[in-house]
């Protein structure tokens, strides 16, 4: 075929469209899209989650996709702002036929929910473990790849009740939506378990110095202090000063403050920090964990806890997609969610150390890990705790 002017034009057009960032996509690709907080206050998590999703998608595609269909992942940065997240949602859903969505915040999950239900074409999960979202009636097309915040604290409380019945507990939380989320119900839960909540300390989001809060804590003298609503700061300073004062309290945290490398940079003061973790750590070698081995083969360096969150979320996305396609049904939101809820005693390849069953919007499973400053690692300190059992 000789190159006529028309074919040349067609060629040029084709290259132009490819360069303009619209790669040709097969119509039956399974599309995962995401509003990712790659900059801003939550960038630490967003970057990890982003990498986790990419890696699992790559593993699946290398193994031939889902029922022969390729998986595509598209994402854009939101700077952790709700209006930008919604903009990204609108952009990605109008450019692609999105089946699965990853949202970056509680605010976004709540804002987009009516739209999600109206479209009915996709299922969504995200970085938020807000208690409010754990309601299949109000949020029928959403889920979270772990326990909600109240359940996380519940797991800690159960652990405490078992190791030290009647213990005195302090809650320290930030004055944000994130921080306040589990406090009310957890107080009631603690009472039910026979634990005594001696003090609740609120820190403003801009707080740097926590000396006065430490003094309060010292007067209350709890056995356990549970932090919620932080990533890292001001936890190390709390622990430092508590150590200086010789407080007997043990410090605990929830998922977003459990990353191993962050605590690794804290050093000596981090020793003894405990917290609830729904997943196992990157380096965890106990038992059989084919998925962790795959991750270690793909990325020789340590991967953060948000990475594992993104990885597992994608695994659940694609397991649901697989079940829908195997059942010969249409790939839409309600079917995906029904498939997700059909997951029973599912083996996550070692990401979670126990088989999981998803009956609602959350996976109320977790394990208490404890940081060992000598080994520089979070080490398991309890068995897998399943709430409601």
């Amino acid at each position, binding site marked *: 075929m000789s190159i006529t002017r028309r074919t040349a034009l067609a060629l040029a057009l084709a290259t132009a469209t490819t360069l303009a960032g619209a790669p040709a996509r097969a119509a039956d690709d399974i599309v995962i899209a995401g509003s990712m907080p790659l900059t801003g*206050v939550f960038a*630490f998590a967003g970057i990890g989650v982003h990498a986790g999703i990419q890696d699992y998608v790559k593993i699946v595609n290398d193994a031939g996709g889902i029922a022969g269909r390729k998986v595509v992942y598209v994402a854009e940065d939101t700077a952790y702002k709700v209006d930008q997240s919604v903009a990204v949602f609108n952009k990605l859903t109008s450019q692609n036929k999105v089946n699965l969505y990853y949202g970056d915040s509680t605010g976004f999950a709540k804002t987009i929910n009516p739209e999600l239900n109206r479209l009915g074409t996709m299922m969504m999960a995200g970085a938020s473990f807000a208690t409010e979202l754990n309601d299949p009636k109000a949020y029928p097309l959403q889920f979270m790849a772990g326990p909600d915040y109240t359940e996380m604290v519940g797991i800690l409380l159960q652990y405490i009740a078992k190791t030290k019945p009647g213990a005195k507990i302090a809650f320290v939380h930030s004055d944000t939506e994130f921080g306040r989320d589990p406090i009310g119900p957890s107080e009631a839960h603690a009472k039910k378990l026979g634990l005594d909540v001696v003090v609740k300390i*609120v820190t403003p989001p*801009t*707080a740097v110095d926590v000396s006065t809060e430490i003094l309060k804590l010292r007067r209350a003298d709890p056995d356990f202090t549970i932090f919620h609503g932080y990533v*890292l700061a001001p936890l190390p*300073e709390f622990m430092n000063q508590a150590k*200086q004062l010789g407080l007997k309290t043990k410090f605990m945290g929830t998922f977003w403050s459990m990353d191993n490398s962050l605590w690794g*940079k804290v050093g000596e003061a981090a020793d003894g920090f405990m917290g609830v973790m729904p997943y196992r750590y990157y380096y965890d070698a106990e038992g059989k964990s084919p998925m962790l081995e795959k991750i270690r083969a793909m990325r020789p360096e340590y991967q953060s806890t948000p990475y594992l969150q993104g990885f597992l979320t994608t695994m659940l996305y694609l397991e649901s997609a697989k079940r829908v396609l195997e059942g010969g049904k249409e790939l839409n939101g309600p079917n995906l969610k029904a498939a997700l809820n059909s997951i029973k005693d599912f083996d996550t390849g070692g990401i979670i150390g126990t088989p999981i069953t998803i009956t609602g919007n959350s996976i109320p499973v977790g394990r208490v890990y404890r940081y060992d400053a000598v080994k520089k690692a979070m080490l398991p300190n309890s068995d897998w705790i399943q709430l409601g059992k």
Partner: protein
Amino acid sequence: MIDFDWLFFLEVSLAGLGSGALLALTGLSFVLIYKATRAVNLAIGEMLMIGAYAFFSFSAGLGLPWWAAVPAALACGGLLGAVIERAVIRPMLGESAISVLMVTIGLGSVLIGAVELLWGADPAQLPDFMGTSPVFLGPAYVSRKIVIGFAVAATVITLFILAFRFWRGGVALRATATDQGAAYSCGIDVPVVFSMAWVFAGVAAAGAGILVGAVGGISPAMGIFGLSALVVVIVGGLDSVVGALIGGVLVGLIEAWTGTYLGGEFKTLITFGLLIAVLMVRPYGLFGTVEIERL
């Protein structure tokens, strides 16, 4: 209250003084810039962050001991101040204060992006260089970092007050602040004074950043601390070094007391309530220069 715990009150007040000192040091940097160049620098929190990250690189990255890393970080802060002044503020000379304020907001965005690019988004902890043994003043406990922070802030601010009083450069800066035209005609090199003010402010901000980072850890979002310093300088008076000190201590104390006796969620409410009250009584802050308006 019948049995008021005086020891507790004393400890809380000491803690408040300490965190007030951090605010005062940040406020100082703000005041220096405002006094000399009439620029409101909303990027002060981000300059502080750069100082903290520089220290992090020198100490944790290069493994320098703290006595070498601190001056190096301070030098970086000074350099940053000089670069900002020369590249961004100097071209805005003579423009309205509000345009300059906006430029510093843009600057804040640039600095945050730079930190995310160079150091990544993970929060981190500065290596401990202040020791951990607790300090007791009589029976009252004070955090060691806070004691050191207070001592540093008090020393630095005293030095600046003395410099403004006795050093030629300090006097030149004061002269420029009072009347730029007159300062020019007296042979004061006003642009040099501007640069100098920004360099010193950069150094002060870097110092504050190291202290703040040592207490609260570092992350690309730590610049928000600058906002609390804004309250301090407004309470104290935008162009008063003493005001920064008194304002800082005052805000620190009030925050500590409300945090303890009312709860953390009331901190901002009470602090800003105080701010409005002060402004209604003294519109130029406690120690700010009252501008006499004439037609």
